[in-house]
């Protein structure tokens, strides 16, 4: 191990921000002690009421006063952390404007206030004791370490004339240096304890943190979905502008060659015919793939138009009934389109059906999508890599939708999907 690394590890940089930390501790002292007079008053009135029962009427006063000063003290504490710890304390959720309760009543019933009271009235005085101890250590350390200066600065007649005073002063200096070594560590530990207490009692509660986390996650998930959708659209656009046009152009040129080059040998004609046919097949295949990504008509005209297009491309008759008074969000539309398009592909591939029915309707805040066929049934959600139903279920779950597939052996198969859509 290199010496510098070792030096860095062992002291652990205790003097980093030590001034700020000590100031944080010092500033905490008056704030923590502010409630102590109220405590003493409360104890006083209670003691008085034991002697004279009439004095009990005064007892609620210190309690009320505590409630009044609590928000002020909280503001003070927040300022202390913002100014001296380099970062503010996380705030608890502000109770929303629910019902017609007055704000004061809502505050009293909220847990945030009582946690603050707990901090200022109980944790505060205890922390104040520790603050005092640490400040005392600092003071003692500074005085002891500089004992020679003190000795030198004192007027000669006050000096200790004992012969052994040099040895004693050396011991005191050594003790002071030891305390100086200890001081930053104690301060660091106390600041950690203080911060922990403040975060737990003045910051958001666990429930609030979880609620916030859920909201954040929901937001980021929506962002990811939107990004995936945008990506799909981009790929569709790129393929449409690039490969698809190139392939069509190739097929057109081959078609032209076939039509205009009359005097070709039979072999060459055969090759051109073959290439022409394959180019057209490639176009058809690519078209099917690309349209499954995110058809332009979905964005432009909505689900009804896009699903009719899907249905018409299938080899079996499919009835499509879409009843939507207004369009759902693009993400929900994309999921619904994907579900129906995949489900119908499955019907054609696996179900041996002669016809299928698609209905899309809005019931309240739910988009209900039903795909039914008259095929052989037996579709299995758990079938690994089989019918792609699991993929559908996942895509639906990504927008908090529900997916169900009823497919008894012998058929028919009915896939029901419910997608939440805000009004």
């Amino acid at each position, binding site marked *: 191990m290199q010496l510098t690394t070792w030096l860095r590890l062992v002291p652990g940089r205790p003097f980093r921000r030590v001034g700020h930390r000590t100031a944080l501790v010092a500033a905490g002292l008056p704030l923590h002690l502010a409630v102590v007079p109220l405590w003493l008053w409360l104890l006083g009135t209670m003691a008085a009421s034991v002697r004279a029962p009439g004095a009990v009427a005064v007892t609620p006063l210190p309690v009320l006063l505590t409630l009044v000063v609590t928000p002020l003290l909280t503001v003070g504490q927040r300022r202390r952390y913002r100014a001296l710890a380099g970062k503010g304390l996380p705030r608890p959720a502000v109770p929303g404007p629910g019902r017609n309760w007055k704000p004061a009543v809502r505050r009293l019933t909220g847990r945030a206030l009582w946690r603050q009271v707990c901090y200022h009235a109980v944790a505060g005085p205890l922390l104040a004791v520790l603050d005092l101890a640490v400040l005392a250590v600092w003071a003692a350390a500074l005085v002891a370490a500089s004992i020679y200066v003190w000795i030198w600065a004192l007027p000669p007649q006050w000096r200790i004339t004992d012969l052994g005073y040099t040895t004693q002063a050396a011991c005191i200096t050594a003790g002071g240096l030891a305390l100086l070594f200890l001081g930053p560590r104690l301060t660091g530990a106390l600041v950690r304890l203080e911060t922990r207490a403040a975060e737990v009692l003045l910051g958001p509660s666990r429930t609030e943190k979880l609620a916030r986390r859920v909201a954040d996650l929901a937001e980021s998930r929506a962002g990811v979905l939107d990004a995936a959708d945008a990506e799909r659209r981009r790929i569709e656009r790129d393929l449409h502008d690039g490969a698809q046009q190139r392939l069509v152009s190739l097929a057109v040129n081959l078609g*032209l060659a076939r039509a205009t080059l009359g005097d070709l040998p039979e072999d060459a004609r055969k090759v051109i015919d073959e290439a022409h046919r394959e180019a057209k097949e490639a176009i058809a295949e690519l078209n099917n793939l690309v*349209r499954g990504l995110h058809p332009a008509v979905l964005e432009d005209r909505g689900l009804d138009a896009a699903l009719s297009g899907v*249905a018409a*491309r299938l080899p079996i008759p499919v009835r499509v009934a879409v009843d939507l008074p207004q369009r759902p969000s693009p993400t929900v539309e994309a999921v619904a389109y994907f579900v129906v398009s995949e489900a119908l592909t499955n019907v054609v591939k696996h179900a041996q059906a002669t016809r299928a029915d698609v209905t899309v309707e809005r019931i309240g805040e739910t988009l209900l999508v039903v795909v039914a066929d008259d095929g052989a049934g037996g579709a299995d959600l758990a079938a690994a890599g089989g019918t792609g139903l699991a993929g559908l279920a996942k895509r639906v779950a990504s927008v908090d939708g529900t997916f169900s597939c009823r497919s008894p052996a012998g058929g028919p198969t009915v896939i029901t999907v419910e997608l939440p859509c805000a009004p």
Partner: protein
Amino acid sequence: MRAVIAEDSLLLRIGVVKVLEAAGFEMCAQVADAEGLLAAVEEHRPDIAVVDVRMPPGFTDEGVRAALVIRRQYPRTAVLLLSQYVEERYAADLLAANTSGVGYLLKQRVADVEEFTEAVRRVAAGGTALDPQVVAQLLVRRHSDPLDRLTPREREVLELMAGGRSNSGVAAELVVSESAVAKHINSIFTKLDLPKADADHRRVLAVLRFLGVATA
């Protein structure tokens, strides 16, 4: 015949121009967006405009909207829409406003050079040319349809008519005689309750009513 083309993909524009020039069309203008198309039509008054559906700036249905404007403002210019995918909704928009001089084909149909030039000529002459996929899609949309009353063969005949084929074209496609086709068509007219009038008009009406884009 004189034609303009609006297509934002240069490769494909060159291909279509080659095909049309080989077929004897005079290309008046080649543009890349709907605005340019309207200006070119205003300037040249061509017999036909061959128009891509998806063009700048929005890349959705600019071509369809331009086609509707052209058919309304320049009735003597026919419009043939080309698209990577055919969408029933665009076809319905186009057909609801026009019953002649319109066409809607997949881009890949251009590769079948003879059939494509035949379709362009037909549309330019005031006929229609609908892609088989358009017809299929429009049929999906018919919920309570007169389709039920037709025999499978009559349905085939009607689909081909909807694509713009003549009696002889239908006969050749289905490998039956022309008189058999005429018989089927008469039966279709009867089943769709179309009055005996001008035969061509009845043909168009039959197709459109069948496709659900015109009422009576």
